[in-house]
């Protein structure tokens, strides 16, 4: 589950992290303002193309299937006579369909950007250290927490006290304490070690840092910004 929050593959055509951020922000405004099927499909197609560009084939296909099913349900509501209550329930699915493009924009930002690219872009935008350091630590740390979580559950299983329904219902307090206390204390210890290691590597030094990766706006970025601005203007002129 925690692999979702990490870089997964190089894109065919590189897109600047700043462009991706802008696309996400604009998309989240557009998609929630405007729920007409034509417009939503336009957003969906743009995001789908960008995900394919980022080599997220499996994820993009999954989203395509989900979107297809949701559109099918939509047609069902429009053209087939159903009881009123069922109809009301099914129309609710449209609300969830509105979130799909936004979710895809977020996945695009997380899955196709390396943390060091993110940091280089942040530094170019003159973000303070107070944001960039915790941000990079956060992305490095998701898998570690997953490991710790598995180890703690193993240790609990050894002692015959597992996360199952019976324990959850009869002794929720104890279950909670036995999980969260080791989780928190391990986290603190790991954080201390990590900060010692990164201080050795010169993080937090007063001088500026250099970066191996280049972030640069290209023609593709300009085109994408143009498209997303156009879509935003359309969504504002809808009413």
């Amino acid at each position, binding site marked *: *589950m*925690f692999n979702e*929050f990490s870089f997964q593959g190089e894109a065919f055509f590189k897109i600047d992290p700043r462009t991706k951020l802008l696309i*996400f*922000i604009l998309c*989240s*405004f557009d*998609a*929630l*303002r*405007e*729920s*007409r099927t034509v417009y939503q499909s336009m957003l969906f197609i743009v995001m789908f193309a960008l995900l394919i560009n980022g080599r997220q084939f499996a994820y993009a296909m999954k989203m395509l299937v989900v979107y297809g099913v949701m559109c099918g349900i939509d047609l069902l509501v429009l053209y087939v006579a159903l009881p009123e209550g069922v109809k*009301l329930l099914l*129309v609710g699915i*449209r*609300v969830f369909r*509105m*979130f799909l493009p*936004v*979710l895809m924009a*977020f996945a695009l930002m997380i899955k196709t950007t390396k943390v060091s690219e993110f940091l280089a872009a942040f530094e170019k935008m003159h973000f303070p*250290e*107070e*944001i960039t*350091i*915790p*941000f*990079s*630590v*956060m992305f490095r*740390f*998701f898998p570690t*927490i*997953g490991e710790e*979580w598995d180890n703690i559950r193993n240790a609990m299983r050894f002692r015959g006290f597992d996360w199952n329904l019976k324990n959850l219902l009869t002794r929720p307090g104890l279950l*909670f*304490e036995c999980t*969260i*206390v080791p*989780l*928190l*204390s391990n*986290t*603190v*210890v*790991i*954080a*201390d070690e*990590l*900060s010692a290691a*990164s*201080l050795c590597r010169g*993080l*937090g030094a007063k001088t500026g840092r250099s970066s191996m990766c280049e972030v640069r706006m290209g023609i593709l970025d300009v085109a994408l910004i143009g498209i997303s601005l156009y879509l935003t203007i359309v969504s504002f002129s809808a*009413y």
Partner: protein
Amino acid sequence: MKDKKLQTKDLIMAGVFAVLYVALICILASLTGMLIPVYLVLPLIAGVILGPVYTLYLSKVPKMGAVLILSVLAGFVMSASSIMVLVYVVALGIIAQVILSKTNYSEQGIRWSYIVFACATEGPFLSLFFAREGFLNTCVQYYGQEYADKIDAATPMWFLLVQIGLALIGGYIGGRIGVAMNAKHFKKAGIA
């Protein structure tokens, strides 16, 4: 001598605790996701469970801006459904920071500020509310005013208030548990 400014060490601690915060929310959401009634009281459960994380973080890093960093990072991940969630969570972070500064990071102050900050788990639900506006507008075009009114009535607004109320209660309980846990475990182990 106590250093008031955030050091690199504190920033790393902030990143690590933000991961813990977000990961616990993800685990909870996926555990309770199958049961809709439980999912709807998620703010209460999350408030209780995240209490110890928040209190330990603030007793480790009792400095200006610590809560703000947590709110920016957690808000960023929770904003997967809408960027407005980030704005909402950061606003809560600012209020919590004000309370903490006024109370000088006492145990009482941490507990009070957590009651405010616990509302952050309400964020993902809030985006449903933003989507609702746009959805109702297009409903009028598609199915007519009458139908839109029907949907409006079926998804009552007051439920959002109930959830925020639940989050506040969760924050109160979670803060109490967090402070108690600090005294029982972490101070003894020398890590609080």
